[in-house]
């Protein structure tokens, strides 16, 4: 089971992920996220809230990497927050926390993108 909710904000997109971001769901996530970038038509940031994300595999990492690379040329950031358990471990092992900002809380994530 995987669900994503995208809320349009002035600074970009506030995205909540729920369930499993795996080889089955990652292509859908990537498609929707890239469509959101294209629809924005200007520099945007993405906050990815993992509070309800139970699982992520390398397929999920790949889709996040595609999103981050797409945003980077215009200065857009992908900020991660709400990580715990195996999701936090996977992000750590892959070193994604070395090139993506990781916020300790949702509030911190919103500050990083200049929302508050």
């Amino acid at each position, binding site marked *: 089971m995987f669900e994503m909710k995208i809320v349009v904000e002035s600074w970009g997109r506030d995205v909540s992920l729920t369930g499993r971001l795996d*080889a089955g769901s990652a292509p859908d996530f990537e498609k929707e996220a890239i469509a959101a970038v294209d629809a924005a038509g200007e520099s945007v940031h993405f906050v990815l809230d993992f509070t309800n994300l139970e699982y992520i595999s390398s*397929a999920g990492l790949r889709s996040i990497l595609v999103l981050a690379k797409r945003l980077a040329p215009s200065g857009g950031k992908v900020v991660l927050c709400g990580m715990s358990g195996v999701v936090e471990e996977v992000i750590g092992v892959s070193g994604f926390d070395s*090139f*993506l900002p990781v916020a300790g809380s949702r509030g911190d994530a919103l500050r990083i993108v200049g929302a508050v």
Partner: protein
Amino acid sequence: MESTVRERTFPASLDCLGGFRAFILEENGAEERLPPKRVAHLDVAIEEIVVNICSYAYENPPGKLTIRVEESPEAFAVEFLDNGVAFDPLEVDEPDVTRPLEERDAGGLGILLVRRMMDEVHYSRKGTLNSLRIVVKTPRER
């Protein structure tokens, strides 16, 4: 508890990922015998290995994938057997996970996760078969 081995052969297709997971994690009792954190590690390892085999092992997919689950008092082990192209994923160089965004690609991350999350990973070529065996050690009972 004595050692037991259970084996099942599936089509090597990503459509069967749910079936692989259920066979290893539920029917074979990983969820009962291992702490939740280790079950989650096994969950990741299963997906990474199955995705690799289903995507790359066969020139004319889908081939077959046999899964052997070996339970002993000391460990929960899973062996993945395919008769596709000979390939040892442990020989591939590990990605440099300290590189910046612009120099990163997603290659090699799956097997890296398997290596870091399993207690042991072994590859061997058995005749015409690739064997990849992963082991999670069982916590000692008090």
